[in-house]
């Protein structure tokens, strides 16, 4: 018994030691920025470039725009918010939680993606999807949850426009974020999905086939960013940096259209 006790106690002590300074000491941590999940790779690159150029690091937390909006309303300590649409930042601005109305920093694009080995043939008019659906070949199809993710809303609009919404609804798997939807679309459990083009370029393009959906088929994904009430100088600089040529080039490389 004492031997076992001692070894258990030693384990616990070792674990606690490993975990040196407690998380409560948070004063010197870099400022935290909330960003829509479609920016997962693009914004990381922008932040890395910013760190090299300005010498300051910022922490990025990715999520669905709706989820992040809710967290900001509940008091999450973010200093800046980059959304996937305009509605969510406007909601925060109306609630008096932002510095101002903010700026549109990018316009997102939606793409149809099918993983390798999927029976789905991708095309920008969704004809292949319609055929597969009619033939009963759609097992699962991934989109982001339209309630919290603007890319999910855009996907719903596209499916509705092509008259596929009612038929495909029982087959939909909803990702919490567009990144999770992309995850679902690649695992092979779904025949494919409507995902952010930025995620296709960053991660999916070698894992299957894709087609960019024409911008006219869904309300534009104008992505707005705002400084939040507690924004400090580092984040203010980052906010300006996102609008500069270096950052815009990165966003364009990741498939976004950037406003002139």
């Amino acid at each position, binding site marked *: 018994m004492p031997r076992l006790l001692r070894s258990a106690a030693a384990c616990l002590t070792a674990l606690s030691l490993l975990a040196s300074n407690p*998380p409560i000491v948070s004063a010197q*941590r870099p400022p935290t920025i909330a960003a829509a999940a479609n920016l*997962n790779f693009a914004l990381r690159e922008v932040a890395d470039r910013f760190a090299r150029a300005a010498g300051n690091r910022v922490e990025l*937390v990715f999520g669905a725009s709706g989820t992040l909006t809710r967290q900001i309303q509940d*008091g999450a300590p973010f200093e800046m918010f980059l959304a996937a649409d305009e509605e969510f930042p406007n909601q925060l601005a109306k609630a008096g939680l932002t510095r101002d109305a903010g700026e549109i920093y990018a316009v997102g694009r939606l793409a149809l993606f099918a993983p390798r080995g999927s029976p789905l043939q991708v095309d920008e008019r969704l004809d292949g999807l319609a055929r597969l659906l009619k033939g009963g070949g759609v097992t699962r199809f991934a989109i982001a949850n339209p309630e919290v993710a603007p890319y999910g809303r855009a996907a719903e609009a596209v499916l509705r426009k092509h008259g596929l919404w009612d038929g495909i609804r029982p087959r939909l798997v909803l990702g919490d974020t567009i990144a999770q939807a992309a*995850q679902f679309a690649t695992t092979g459990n779904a025949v494919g999905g409507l995902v952010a083009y930025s995620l296709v370029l960053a991660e999916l393009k070698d894992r299957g086939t894709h087609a960019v959906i024409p911008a006219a088929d869904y309300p534009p994904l104008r992505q707005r960013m705002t400084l939040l009430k507690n924004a400090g100088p580092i984040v203010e600089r980052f906010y300006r940096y996102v609008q500069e040529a270096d950052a815009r080039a990165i966003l364009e490389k990741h498939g976004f259209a950037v406003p002139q």
Partner: protein
Amino acid sequence: MDWDALRVSLWLGAGTIALLLPWGIWFGRLLAVREFRGKLLVEALVTVPLVLPPTVLGFYLLVAFGVRSPLGKAFQAVAGQPLPFSFEGLLVASAIANIPFVVQPIQRGFEAIPLDVRDAAACCGLTPWQRFVRIEAPLAWPGILTAAILTFAHTLGEFGVVLMVGGNLPGETRTLSVAIYDRMQAFDDRSAGVMAAALLAIAVATLMATTTLARRVGRRRG
């Protein structure tokens, strides 16, 4: 491997034990040795977090302590920051979620002490405190240790309430289990796999430890 997340997880586990164990020993012993009216209800309430979906707890904590609620505003005025989306908030949520994991093994531990041992100790003229320290605590020790280990392991595995109340803030509320989810969404399956394996190893080690302890208690009882 996200070492920051591991650090947060370990601190959360240790903090939850530190916060809960003293109360758990007091309350578990009380439930073991006393009979009182409404004991059944109290025992049920203690067990509720075991069957409650973590989202329910997360919902109530956010509603009660979010900056939009009067309670949350009061807390912010005193503490200078809101309770949700902070490590302290996670600690509160984790403490509530772990009440049954602390109280039940400790209660079983004290129940396993035969009544005549306690009577004999009282007859020897020991004060209640001496009885507790010299007789009961050493005998109930496996139960107490089981409680600590279970709490630690359960805290490491908590996901829903951590994500809801903590919000995935690196270095503060991003625990290992949340980091796995975060890495998955970033298509970083390698990191997610390493962290998942780490949590699996900890879980297996924990269960082995608690099973060994439970056998000890069983042997003594028999």
